[in-house]
């Protein structure tokens, strides 16, 4: 197990280097001058030139990248060009809310997706099966921004059940829970569909296997057969999908956080990119990549726990 983790970590190093290079390259290629952004619209060219020089923006690109890489290796991601706060502190402030949002999203959508998928498999071909599959198709097809706006329209505006602006505090507070509810519901809505679909097909496959037939022959109740012998063995592809989807959720969080003004990594990344805040944009890209790699690593570990044959 430890060997696998170490191997994974080693593989991540070139991936992270690639991310750093790509993030730096993309932002260099994008037109825009941070010095002008900092100086403001009425600044004279002399003031802009002075700021450019001070920020090192006149250095050759390779020199800029080399300096950046050197700083990153020392744990220094630089300072935001806009707020002048350290990128690390900005990221640290935003990671918590995003982690909370992920947790709040997964805590309801994964069990519901698995539950619905299992129900659809057990009652294959029934109206319930078709209804669940229709819901899952809708979840997969609807764009996240549309789901967010619908949530605001109905739960926020018409029925006035939940707030939809900002973060009310940590997740464990009443205000925090109320504020995270709509973003988490919106984000979770796109998660249920794929989980339900893969669970359904996986459970259907497993229910055809010999050990399930044996369990039934032994006279076990259908509930025990499905939950104890069917579902557990059907979970491996579901876990794989969840791992992949959580990565995509980070992308969905960018939109969700922007619409709900939720101060997480996604919103930070959008703000940084739109304002040509190079160091912060690079930092957010890096942290999102690290998040993706970590999630994949956790998924690999879960495989082993669920099915020891994978290790072999």
């Amino acid at each position: 197990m430890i060997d696998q983790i170490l191997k994974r970590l080693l593989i991540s190093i070139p991936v992270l280097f690639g991310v750093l290079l790509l993030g730096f390259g993309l932002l260099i290629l994008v037109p825009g001058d941070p010095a002008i952004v900092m100086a403001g619209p009425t600044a004279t060219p002399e003031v802009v030139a002075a700021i450019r020089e001070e920020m090192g923006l006149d250095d050759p690109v390779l020199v800029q990248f080399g300096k950046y890489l050197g700083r990153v290796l020392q744990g220094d991601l630089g300072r935001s060009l806009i707020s002048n706060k350290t990128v690390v502190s900005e990221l640290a402030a935003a990671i918590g809310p995003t982690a909370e949002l992920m947790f709040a999203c997964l805590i309801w959508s994964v069990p519901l997706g698995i539950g619905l998928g299992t129900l659809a498999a057990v009652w294959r071909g029934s109206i319930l099966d078709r209804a669940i599959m229709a819901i899952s198709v809708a979840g997969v097809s609807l764009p996240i921004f549309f789901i967010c706006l619908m949530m605001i329209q109905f739960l926020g505006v018409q029925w006035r059940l939940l707030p939809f602006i900002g973060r009310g505090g940590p997740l464990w507070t009443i205000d925090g829970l109320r504020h995270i509810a709509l973003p988490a519901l919106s984000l979770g809505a796109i998660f249920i569909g794929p989980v339900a679909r893969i669970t359904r097909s996986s459970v259907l496959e497993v229910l055809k296997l010999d050990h399930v037939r044996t369990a039934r022959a032994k006279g076990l109740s259908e509930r025990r057969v499905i939950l104890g012998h069917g579902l557990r063995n059907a979970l491996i592809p579901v876990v794989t999908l969840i791992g992949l989807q959580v990565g995509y959720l980070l992308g969905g969080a960018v939109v969700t956080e922007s619409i709900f003004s939720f101060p997480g990594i996604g919103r930070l990344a959008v703000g940084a990119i739109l304002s040509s805040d190079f160091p912060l944009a690079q930092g957010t890209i890096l942290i999102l990549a690290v998040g993706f790699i970590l999630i994949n690593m956790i998924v690999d570990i879960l495989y082993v726990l669920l099915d020891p044959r994978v290790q072999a």
Partner: protein
Amino acid sequence: MRRLLTSTAIVLTAGLAQAAEITILREVDSNNYDPHKTTSRAASEVLFMMGDTLVSLAPDMQTIDTGVAESWTMSEDGTIYTFKLREDVQFCDGKKMTAEDVVYSVNRWIDPETKSPVAWRAGEVESVTAIDDYTVEYKLTAPFSELLYQLTQSFGTIIDKDNVEALGEDFGITGFNGTGPFCWAEWTPRDKMVITKHEAYAWGAGFHVNTGPASMDSITWQIVPEENTRTVGVITGQTQVTQYVPYIALEQLKASPGVEVVQSDLAFWTYYMGFKIDKETVSDPAVRRAVNLAVDQEAMSEDLFFGAVKPAYSYVSQEALDWNVGLDDKLLTYDPAKANQILDEAGWVMGDDGVRSKDGVRLAPVAYVFAGSTWAKISESVQAYLREIGVDMQIQAFDATVAWGKLATQEFDMYGMSFPYVSSGDALNLYFRSQNAPSPNRMNWIDDKTDALLLAGATATTDTDRAQAYGEVLELVHDAAVWLPLYHEPMVIAQSTELETVVPHNIYGAGLYKGLDLKFKE
């Protein structure tokens, strides 16, 4: 027992009493809250509340009132201003504000090391001296008639030297010790800024209903980039105030119970398209005049902005200080027939494709505008009007982060811009000085006479002389048709009916100004 019951009742009552807290929604955050290092409106909105200036500006945008200075005099030659400071002003940390703080603030503002993009607004300073603890002498090398107006801006905020030195690069980022009605509490960039009541504040200008302390215990400036979210935020009571609502939602907001929409009569934020006058497509004044005559600003105001903005024919609001009323009848208004006639007479021949040309130059100016819905609809509307007179305007839209850089080049023929100002002189000195080309004088308006008049206006020692000089500049640039004015944007604020009605201010687009009159109804 009775005493115990009484004490319990007092404690319970105190516990039940709710703090007066409001949330104000806005679209974008500032890059920092250092008054000398940012020109953003978002910074001014908060700095006006956290800090004070020597003098303040009344909502009529003309009357200079007291700030931390209770009185002032100007020498006969207009080069020395002597400010008598109030003796009861103190910073949020409890330290008394003295003349030394004013001296430090101005010196830091104009210090080249500070690299302030707005240092010019302080005038040509020779020295700023503390005569005694509460008297400041502000000496200029030449008179600056705009000085008092410039000193009302947030750039002239009085800062605390100890605070600046203690925070270093983090000044205005992790803290700010000001003398305003509110104090810095917490800033999360791009998310929210929280400011709390300055309990000792009692030196607000007389035009405020409340001169201090503020009625609100705390204000949260929450960033909500999405305009629909801001709109429904007000409707559902999740916020109490915002000045950033889309025009399309104004009627809906007005019809919503619990929401009041207030609008100022004045409009000191002007949208225009400028001409780079040395480009061959628009170097001919006839073309520029024709373009001005071809666009129907009134229809644009109605169709694009639901009548909420004022159609503009002048380069600054006609209510602005030193506006030349002699120009009122000369302004170019919608007359496409005359526009066509002017172009015909000037030799611009209509081609088979409906586009005019002359001496091999096709009348197809390239216009740089900001990306986004506002400039998209403005520029497309202008484009449609210009097609009617044979001008094929080519629109190129850029994101704001790119646009400022593109607008500092010589690549375009026309450009779209909007700007706030406190007076005619404020706008003219910024945009029409030859030395300010190519940015912010993006027209390349290089004219000795204008420069001489601007200098005369800036150094005038009487209101009449100043108005005369600036009036002549206004006539010069309007005659040359170097801009196509589009509309003046009034300050519109959507607020909860739980609050007393606010008086919208136009200073630098900061509609709530000091925030002193924000108050829940009793």
